[in-house]
């Protein structure tokens, strides 16, 4: 029994009823209509239009998508499956594939370039000319976001005992003058056991109560504060905020969140994790060393603090919240640096002041 099919020539919708046969000599499928006219397809060029399902018509085409079509009963598979080697092969669309590859490559390259080169450069340049008023606002917004993140729903409390704040302001003034900064940054103490401190855009430094609780003496606190002042002098926080906002936005675009809702939250998170580069950290450390030396504060406090923090970390086995050492790797090397390159000196503040700072959150 002959296998029958319907042939469409791709030029018009006229239907040609044909009988199918394979001509082994020329390696062609021959489709012959009632009048005897025959259409021939090379066997190697024949493709399936879709996965055949038994009981449904099977459709064939040539490698070219635009060309003619053959529709036949599923019995045609008995004839064509053994004869056609490329039935399931995707047609050769090298040009299309090459173009696709080019665009994917260009897009990937563009995104990578944006993230690795343009974004940091853009952030750096923008940070230099950024309007101070706007920076203040960003700092305030970041401050609030961070305190909300730390507070777990409601904002973590600021410690505002007047005597403690006076002592901190005196320290800030002294360090800022030593660092050659025009305006002493505004230091705030957040009531949270987290052992950390961070610099925010808008001339702000957040010190967490955990750091004050654990600091062996006022010199350690002065060292940390001087380090954060270093970041501020180099405008690292603003740079990071700009960089992170751009990055969040890019990621948002890639995964489909075109509204960029997570931009500010992302910037706050990255500041909380202090994801500065190694160079930025080293610059801040060097600035801290110089500042401490100029102010005449003993840098050994910072070294002691590093050792203490490292031990603390080991004991607790790395708890959930990021701490000073977790976000600033290589504590040993930094301890050594402060030991070797530091200068001896006096206390950062009188003992009476240090006691006031220790109780700034109201409880001892």
């Amino acid at each position, binding site marked *: 029994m002959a296998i029958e099919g*319907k042939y*469409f*020539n*791709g*030029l*018009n*919708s*006229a*239907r040609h009823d044909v009988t199918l046969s394979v001509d082994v000599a020329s390696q062609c499928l021959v489709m012959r209509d009632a009048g005897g006219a025959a259409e021939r397809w090379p066997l190697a060029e024949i493709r399936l*239009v*879709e*996965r055949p*399902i038994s009981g*449904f*018509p099977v*459709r064939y*085409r040539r490698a070219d*998508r*635009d*060309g*003619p*079509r053959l*529709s036949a009963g599923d019995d045609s598979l008995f004839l064509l499956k053994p004869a056609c080697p490329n039935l399931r092969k995707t047609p050769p669309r090298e040009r*299309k*594939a090459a*173009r*696709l590859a080019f*665009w*994917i490559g260009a*897009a990937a390259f*563009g995104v990578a370039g944006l993230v690795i080169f343009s974004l940091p450069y853009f952030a750096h340049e923008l940070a230099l000319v950024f309007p101070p008023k*706007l920076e203040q*606002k*960003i700092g*305030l*917004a970041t401050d609030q976001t961070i305190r909300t993140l730390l507070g777990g729903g409601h904002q973590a409390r600021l410690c505002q005992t007047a005597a403690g704040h006076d002592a901190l302001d005196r320290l800030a003034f002294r360090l800022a003058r030593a660092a050659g900064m025009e305006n002493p940054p505004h230091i705030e103490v957040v009531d949270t056991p987290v052992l950390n401190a961070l610099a925010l855009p808008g001339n702000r430094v957040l010190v967490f109560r955990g750091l004050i609780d654990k600091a062996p003496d006022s010199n350690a606190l002065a060292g940390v504060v001087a380090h954060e002042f270093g970041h501020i002098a180099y405008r690292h926080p603003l740079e990071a905020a*700009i960089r992170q*906002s*751009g990055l*969040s*936005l*890019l990621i*948002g*675009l*890639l*995964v*489909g969140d*075109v*509204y*960029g809702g997570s*931009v*500010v939250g992302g*910037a706050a998170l990255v500041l909380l994790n202090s994801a500065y580069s190694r160079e930025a950290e080293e610059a801040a450390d060097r600035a801290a060393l110089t500042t401490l030396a100029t102010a005449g504060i003993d840098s050994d406090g910072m070294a002691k603090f590093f050792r203490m923090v490292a031990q603390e970390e080991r004991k607790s086995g790395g708890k959930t919240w990021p701490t000073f050492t977790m976000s600033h790797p290589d504590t040993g090397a930094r301890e050594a640096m402060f030991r070797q390159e530091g200068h001896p000196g006096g206390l950062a503040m009188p003992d009476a002041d240090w006691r006031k700072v220790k109780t700034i959150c109201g409880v001892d």
Partner: protein
Amino acid sequence: MTSVDAVVPSEEKTLFRLVFTDRPGLFTLLLKNMGLTIITLGIYRFWARTALRRYWWSNVVIDGDSLEYTGTGAELFLGFLFFLLVVSPFGLVWGLLKAFAADPKWQAVLTLGFYVFLLFILLPVAMFRARRYRMSRTRWRGIRGGMTGSTLRFLAITIGGFVATILSCGILAPWMRIMQTRYITNCSSFGDQDLNFDGKSGGLILRWLAILALPALLVVVAGLMLAAAAAKHQASGEPVVPEASILAIIPIGLAVAIFAIGLIWYNVYEFRYTLNHTLIGTLRLRSLIEPFVVVGYVLGFFIVGGFAITLFLGTVIAFVVGIAAVFAQGQKEAMGAIIVVAVLVLYLVAFIAMSILRVLILDKAIVKMLVDTAALAGPGGLGEIRQSTVPMPGSGEGMADAFDLGAF
């Protein structure tokens, strides 16, 4: 169901019914799509959508031959990359502006501006281009569709229609949709046959008003209830009774429910109207779809499906709580953690199951009905359509993908 033949006037010599053939394999296709989309973090979605479209297209049979979808996942992906390249600079600038406009007032203005941009510019452009792509990738007997026309012109029509709709408090929405349909249809062709749309929006606006009327009335009732409560409070000096405000929720909820149902009804009605006023060359499309039947399908699916999912989740959660109680041995924190994780996993499973079942049961039933109640009628046959000469777009619907336009 009424017979298609009943609505064909006697001078229309030929009638070709559309048939939905129900090829097996949809469930495995959906499972594969879902699995690969999850594994590839969403990148597979372009290929998934293509596979699903190929399924729908190949099930629509006209005069013994089914449609063929020739689009590829790579084309959709390419379109998406195009979209990223075009839109990301805008998005970047906007995002930076928004992130640094710490003033909430400015943030609100910027957000509004962005939505206006999305709604008025990008969305219509995406709609138009997606339609053009799909037309060019649809074949029947080797002949393909095509679409010409200018995106800017369509944008102008849409913006004009939108302004009219807003000025008329939504009443002229059907007018806007018919304008869009007319432009798109008149730009379309199949092979060498032009498509034509000869519908008008008058009848549609009347039905649209009927759908708006009852919800609007209910909203007024709610307003009156609130006003009455406030007046009583003023007269007596008593504090506003919360019951009065709570009672006002009933008509508002009712209004939302009625409007949602009305919207489904209207969309199907408009679809039928659009088909019945579309000509392909000399052949007219016909549809006998009953909008209320589709409403019944949708409601039935969500009521039964929602009930089944709630029952399933309730049972499993009760089971998990029991197991958690045994394993946690009285430790409250551990028990809480187990329950939270279990509920999250269950939610995900329910979400995935529901989205697969929706296509498998609801979408398929609706598509089948839409196809089986449609026909081509008129003088002349289907044998003389020549191949299209309209150029084909190279890549597909990038923006439409980003906005998730078009279920098919």
